[in-house]
């Protein structure tokens, strides 16, 4: 077979370059191999891809092994060639031109699908810069800006707008749900415990945007919070330029809602004596280092005058020199009742008393219940006035009735007769049951009863019963028992919580055992407290601030804020 193989190459500027090759062979082979008559320089073609063979009936194109080709879009392994046919072998197109003069077969070969530029293709496949992928820096910036603003600014603002006004009497005004409480995202810190139950209702306190919490919001619940001092005397103590929230800082948990720092009090109280002498208060700034001696409020004379008496000068409890006194008008030596061998009980013999026998904490365990004759004393100090009248007892606290009970008893005895007392008139000593006939005898009997009553009353009131505890005087024939002034609290400006000191024995503070007279004021001085308690920053003692014992808003004073103040200012 003599074949004309024309290699066509298209030029970039148009036109086709043509290189003819004349091949004389039995078999015309196509392939990458150097031994092929039609040599394809492309790895996409096989080493020996296909061949044209003359067979009966014409020229045939046949594939080698795995090699195949396409004719008219159909893949095939063998094909009888016709003039004008185009055959695809890998990236090459082979066109059967026919049989021109002098040739058995002529064909053109053209690389129609070149591999392309390696560099360009590598660049196309590769992405070597971060830029250009995804949202980019600008896109992410916008996204984060908008998402943050929407979630943390938009949602809380919506929540604020959608809140109904808070009402403490209507639990439904506390918002529910994620969107309605979205302004909680603005919480700057944990709520204090007492405010937590309406904590998500921000508008309960923050009523108007960009306006600090107003006192009205506070006093709508906290009515009657008292002033710190009498503002008619100390106008500066009204704190008119301060709002509730100036001191009571919410959103700091429980720690912040009540100011405990000494510095706040010491601001004025470290030099209060100079700033407001009329207050009669000593300077104080730190319990451990700068606090005056306690001054107990106690009755200082029998007439009922009250004084503040200093508890100073008692560095040791045993040393009671120059001791402060309270004049309660009661004759009650503590020591006598607390002797080690015990005290005599009318029925039980010797019994040992302790503090708790008379002093019982109140239900809050802060203070003590008042000591009462009826509850604490009468078991031993029975009010019987005559061994013959064991069924009769004098009423306590009622001298007129007591005198009547005595008089009644002796009148009855006199009229009954049978009195065995020597020196008594005959009529009184007569056989019991014998009637009195003469009026004169009856008057004599009653006269004896009156005398007897006076004698017994003298003993009972003056000495044995009333007089043993009370100061009793007889004025114009009337027995007078001096008024008892027992104090509930000796230190009314401070609060001492007995319940929180239960691990301390009574005698550690109150040296009652050594007290021989009722006028001993059995309160410890500040030294006693300072042995355990130090100032705010004490490292080796119980740190104690002003408000550990003192209240800022003082009970008994008018309200600091609220209706009363508003009225005073003409609002």
């Amino acid at each position, binding site marked *: 077979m003599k074949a004309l193989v024309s290699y066509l190459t298209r030029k970039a500027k148009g036109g086709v370059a043509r290189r003819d090759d004349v091949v004389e062979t039995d078999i015309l082979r196509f392939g*990458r191999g150097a031994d092929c008559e039609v040599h394809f320089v492309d790895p996409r073609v096989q080493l020996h891809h296909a061949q044209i063979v003359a067979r009966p009936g014409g020229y045939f194109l046949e594939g080698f092994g795995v090699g195949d080709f396409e004719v008219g879009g159909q893949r095939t392994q063998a094909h009888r060639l016709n003039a004008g046919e185009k055959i695809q072998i890998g990236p090459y197109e082979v066109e059967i031109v026919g049989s021109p003069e002098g040739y058995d077969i002529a064909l053109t070969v053209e690389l129609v699908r070149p591999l392309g530029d390696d*560099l360009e*293709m*590598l660049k196309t496949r590769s992405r070597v810069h971060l830029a250009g992928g995804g949202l980019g820096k600008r896109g992410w910036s916008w996204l984060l800006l908008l998402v*943050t603003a929407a979630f*943390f600014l938009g949602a*809380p603002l919506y929540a604020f707008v959608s809140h109904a006004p808070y009402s403490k009497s209507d639990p439904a005004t506390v918002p529910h749900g994620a969107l309605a409480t979205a302004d*909680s995202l603005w919480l*700057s810190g944990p709520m204090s415990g007492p405010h937590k139950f309406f904590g998500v209702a921000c508008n309960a306190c923050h009523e108007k945007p960009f306006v600090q919490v107003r006192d009205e919001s506070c006093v709508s619940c906290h009515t009657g919070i008292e002033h710190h001092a009498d503002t008619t005397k100390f106008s500066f103590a009204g704190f008119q330029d301060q709002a509730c929230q100036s001191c009571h800082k919410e959103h700091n948990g429980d720690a912040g809602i009540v100011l405990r720092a000494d510095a706040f009090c010491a601001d004025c109280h470290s030099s209060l004596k100079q700033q407001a002498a009329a207050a009669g208060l000593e300077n104080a700034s730190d319990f451990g280092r700068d606090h005056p001696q306690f001054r107990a409020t106690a009755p200082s004379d029998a007439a009922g005058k009250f004084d503040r008496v200093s508890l100073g000068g008692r560095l040791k409890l045993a040393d009671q020199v120059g001791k402060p006194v309270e004049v309660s008008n009661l004759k009650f030596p503590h020591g006598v009742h607390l002797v080690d061998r015990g005290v005599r009980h009318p029925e039980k013999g010797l019994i040992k008393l302790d503090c708790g026998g008379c002093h019982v904490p109140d239900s809050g365990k802060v203070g003590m219940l008042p000591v009462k004759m009826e509850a604490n004393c009468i078991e031993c100090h029975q009010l019987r006035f005559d061994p013959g009248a064991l069924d009769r007892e004098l009423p306590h606290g009622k001298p007129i009735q007591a005198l009547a009970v005595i008089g009644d008893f002796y009148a009855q005895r006199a009229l009954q007769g049978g009195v065995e007392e020597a020196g008594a008139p005959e009529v009184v000593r007569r056989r019991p049951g014998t009637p009195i006939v003469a009026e004169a005898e009856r008057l004599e009997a009653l006269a004896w009863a009156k005398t007897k009553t006076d004698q017994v009353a003298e003993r009972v009131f003056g000495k044995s019963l009333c007089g043993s505890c009370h100061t009793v005087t007889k004025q114009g024939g009337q027995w007078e028992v001096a008024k008892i002034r027992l104090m509930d609290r000796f230190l009314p400006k401070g609060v001492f919580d007995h319940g929180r000191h239960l691990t301390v024995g009574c005698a550690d503070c109150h040296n009652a055992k050594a007290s021989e007279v009722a006028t001993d004021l059995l309160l410890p001085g500040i030294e006693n407290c300072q042995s355990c308690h130090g100032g705010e920053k004490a490292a080796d003692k119980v740190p104690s601030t002003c408000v550990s014992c003192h209240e800022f808003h003082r009970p008994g004073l008018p309200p600091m804020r609220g209706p009363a103040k508003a009225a005073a200012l003409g609002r």
Partner: protein
Amino acid sequence: MHESIVVYSRFRFFKIAAALVLVSLGLYIWDSPKGGIPNGGTWLGYGLGTIGALLILWLMWFGVRKRRYGGGTVKLESWLSAHVYLGLALIVVATLHTGFQFGWNVHTLAYTLMMLVIASGVFGLYAYLRYPRLMTENRKGMTLDAMMQQVADIDRECRESALQLGEEINRAVLDASQNTKLGGGMWRQLSGHDPNCATFAALHRIEELATKAGGSEANELRRLVTLMTRKVDVLRQARRDIQFMALMQIWLYVHVPLSFGLLAALITHVISVFFYW
């Protein structure tokens, strides 16, 4: 001579930032707020917060300033040096502003975003101080384009060398030249290599086939293996170059968007504390 932004102007901005930090710390230690609880709402808290907010706005302005080529009387290096040191000082100023009160709220969100922005900035500073030298060493005077050109050239050479070899080898060579790529997604660029590299696979396969070949084919194969090995070396070098470039850019993809998230959180923070005053 080139002066690093770290030592710029003889540590001028380091000194300013250090002074700001020391003054803030001193005031924080000295101050005893009413109530004893340090927080952003005391006079010192408001003061530190104002300084912090203004610093953040000024630091973000750097993004605008650096785009103004030749603009401004102060040199960009000066700006960058100040940006770095005052940005670091912000850690102390803002932390003291919080009074160490943190919670699940927009205030702590702003603080967290700010710290992330600063952390990414610190990485950026590290990248700018470390990677340019490593990059120069790796490049050995070449650019990435030159490396890619080399890869393309070797590809063509490989194909030509393989033409007279077997089908399987040709397929491997063709696969290596048509499917090898550099870089790719963010992680691929940052990793500096490509475990699925078509050239690695092809080289491996050709080496395997080379052990079975003999005669002149073996010689041809050895030549091909040498070529492919050279290509693998160039690919490694290019991927490392891409990795350095990615490392020097990636932090900005955190730094800039988080800055804008921070801007929104900061504005919200300021509005919210006065809205609910």
